């Protein structure tokens, strides 16, 4: 492994980027040299995706500069410039057009393939690279991408990134490229990365499978809260030290209730795990956390639990579960309505006699929740969208808590909520749980997971670990979230 730090191809210097109140990058500097593979690791929200966006030109940093092989100036750096200099990306969310064939997608990716017989040339470009990286891939380039399996699509995407047309690929950024590949295919790809790097190319590899990073990368950069917290050759890291570097100073657990003995009580909610996965259980009066990296099946589990109670055809008079949305624009807000109506919608069956809503009761309940949870507005008749994000989230909390539902399912509801509000809501949840309510709480923030009585850690769509009591610690959650085996 050679280090050519003196030969940088891409330099990000002092980049900061904020999205509203959230500071995604905090004066970060990052150098990529020719002929090296850098492993980029960090927990949710560490800023990895923002850094990738800046490197491929899609995101413009608020401050700081980005240079590619000597080209100075933030102003001029763009997707087109990045692409011209051979920067290629493979994203977690696949970016191929499902209705077009593999060949046609190659034509879109490579604008230089045009004119007579483009189809034959495009096919040659993508097929030769597929054959090179994944021998025996068995993919028919004339087939539409939508007909391919998820793993095959990922393979096409990877091959496309490394393929060359007008110019060779020089810097390839791979964001979770192996997430849908099986072990042997993933090994083929990692082997190709080494070959590519040996030939002078540069690779940024993001993966939650730490062994891939440790075996493939020359150098590892650990990010946390928008900054680089560790940076050094892979040989200097072990699995444990890597997990340790991603975490923060271990924070004490606030006011944890002693774990209760549940052996002879019946769970209020349970769900069988697939094959060897542990069973999901929740008991009355418990706050159960769903942890792990974002998008590993936690939201799907919550939605399944909610839909399991029925109510699509006929409203339940005695609702069993209420849902607090995290992605409020998609799952929560009813944007044309007032705050009042947004609070009362789930409660409506309780407020109705002979089909007519009793508006006086509705207002009284909404008013009491406005005071209890502190929604900052001068009138409940203001539209919901007049509120700040945090206050909209409080409305969604009130919507669920105002019901008699014994179970409340929460889908990472504190995203973008300020710390003061969070503290208020934590104590509210604890008080409600003490009165017998059950909360199932998916959160990507370790502070919130530490508020829970019991925690299930998810990875790749299933529960991989159950933690309780003093075991609920950042290092334990991180260790379970990141696979320690090579995939």
């Amino acid at each position: 492994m050679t280090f050519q730090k003196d030969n940088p191809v891409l330099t990000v210097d002092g980049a900061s980027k904020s999205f509203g109140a959230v500071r995604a990058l905090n004066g970060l500097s990052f150098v990529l040299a020719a002929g090296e593979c850098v492993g980029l690791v960090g927990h949710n929200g560490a800023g990895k995706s923002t850094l990738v966006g800046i490197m491929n030109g899609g995101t413009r940093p608020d401050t700081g500069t980005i240079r590619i092989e000597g080209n100075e100036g933030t102003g001029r750096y763009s997707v087109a410039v990045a692409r011209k200099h051979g920067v290629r990306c493979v994203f977690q969310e696949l970016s191929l057009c499902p209705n077009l064939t593999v060949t046609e997608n190659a034509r879109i990716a490579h604008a230089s393939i045009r004119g007579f017989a483009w189809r034959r040339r495009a096919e040659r470009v993508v097929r030769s690279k597929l054959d090179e990286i994944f021998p025996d891939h068995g993919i028919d380039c004339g087939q539409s991408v939508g007909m391919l399996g998820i793993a095959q699509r990922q393979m096409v995407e990877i091959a496309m990134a490394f393929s060359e047309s007008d110019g060779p690929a020089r810097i390839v950024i791979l964001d979770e490229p192996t997430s849908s590949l099986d072990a042997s295919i993933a090994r083929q790809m990692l082997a190709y990365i080494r070959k590519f790097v040996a030939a002078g190319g540069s690779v940024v590899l993001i993966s939650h499978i730490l062994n891939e990073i440790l075996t493939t990368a020359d150098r590892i950069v650990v990010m946390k809260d928008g900054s680089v917290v560790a940076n050094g050759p892979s040989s200097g890291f072990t699995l444990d030290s890597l997990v340790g570097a991603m975490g923060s100073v271990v924070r004490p657990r606030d006011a944890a209730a002693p774990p209760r003995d549940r052996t002879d009580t019946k769970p209020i909610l349970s769900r069988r795990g697939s094959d060897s996965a542990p069973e999901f259980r929740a008991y009355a009066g418990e706050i159960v956390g769903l942890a792990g990296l974002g998008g590993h099946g936690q939201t799907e589990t919550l939605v399944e639990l909610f839909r399991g109670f029925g109510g699509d055809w006929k409203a339940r008079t005695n609702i069993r579960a209420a849902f607090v949305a995290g992605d409020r624009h998609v799952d929560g807000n009813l944007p044309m309505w007032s705050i009042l109506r947004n609070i009362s919608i789930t409660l409506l069956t309780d407020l109705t006699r002979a089909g007519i809503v009793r508006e006086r009761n509705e207002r009284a309940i909404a008013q009491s929740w406005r005071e209890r949870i502190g929604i900052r507005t001068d009138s409940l008749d203001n539209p919901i969208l007049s509120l700040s994000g945090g206050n909209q989230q409080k409305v969604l909390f009130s919507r669920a808590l105002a019901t008699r539902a014994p179970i409340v399912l929460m889908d990472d509801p504190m995203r973008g909520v300020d710390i003061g509000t969070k503290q208020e809501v934590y104590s509210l949840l604890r008080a409600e749980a003490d009165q017998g309510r059950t909360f199932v709480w998916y959160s990507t923030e370790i502070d919130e997971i530490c508020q829970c009585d019991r925690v299930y850690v998810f990875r790749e769509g299933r529960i991989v670990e159950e933690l309780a009591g003093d075991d609920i610690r950042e290092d334990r959650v991180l260790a379970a979230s990141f696979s320690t085996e090579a995939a």
Partner: protein
Amino acid sequence: MTSLRTLFAKPWIWSFLAAAGVWLVTIVFTGGASAAGLSQAALTFAAFSIIVGIGQMFVITLGPGNVDLSIPATMTLAGTVALKIMDSSNGLILMGLLVTLLIGLAIGIINYALIKLLRIPPIIATLSSSFIIQSAAISYNRGLRIKPPSALAEFTTATTLGIPNLAYLALAVSVAAWVALEKGIYGRWVSAVGQNMRAARMAGVPVDGVRAATYLLCAVLAALAGLLLSCFSGGAALNMGAEYLLTSIAVVVIGGTAVAGGFANVPGIWGASLFLFLVVSMLNTYGAAAGIRLLLTGTIIIAVIIAASRRPRT
């Protein structure tokens, strides 16, 4: 001043102003001789648009893509079958009403089954079911023209206290719809589904139940309007519903209901229905051709959609 401002903020006010304006122009043009006759005709013909328009309003409020294009065929089938079953006999009127109701329910069920089970977009589902319904009407009718029972024919053409009976009927339907929409849980649910179906589902709204009920309601109202129209005009005709395809949608949109769903308005449908009829009769008095009438109706609808999309919604 403030009360005037709140009045002008109401989404239905414009359709009433427009209707009143056209009414005045027509009266002035005819020298004031036809004021009573024009008003009565307007209320009678508007009644049909109001009844089908209210059904369409609830469907459109369910959100983007929701529209019932089977209204004309449903009207035709209900009118045809009910008249044949009643066989001009006053004793069979209840039977005819029952059959009308059942036809409406059956079509509503078919429409929502196509939408839900086969996952066909509502616009295609209701259009294709309307071909089947229309064919059923053709094969059932075979060109026969049966007179309506005399009691029904009289009821639909007579007036009480100078106001057409049909207008009273439309008023009753409108009041019930207004209560359901503004005061009832059903209206809240329809509006919630129309704003964000996924959020409504996660908030505990019985989304499938609400959508199914809405398509049923729309079909039943269309069937009722079909029966009334065939009794009013002395017999069913195979093309009798045709003009209500555009009209049912136009009165909803001009009446101030949001085209993209989530917000509905009952009073506006009255203003819009009267307005559309009066525009046609005004153009008739001027002697305009049918082509000009259609052109103008289309222009008005487009203008209203543009105006409505600029208005900030409260």
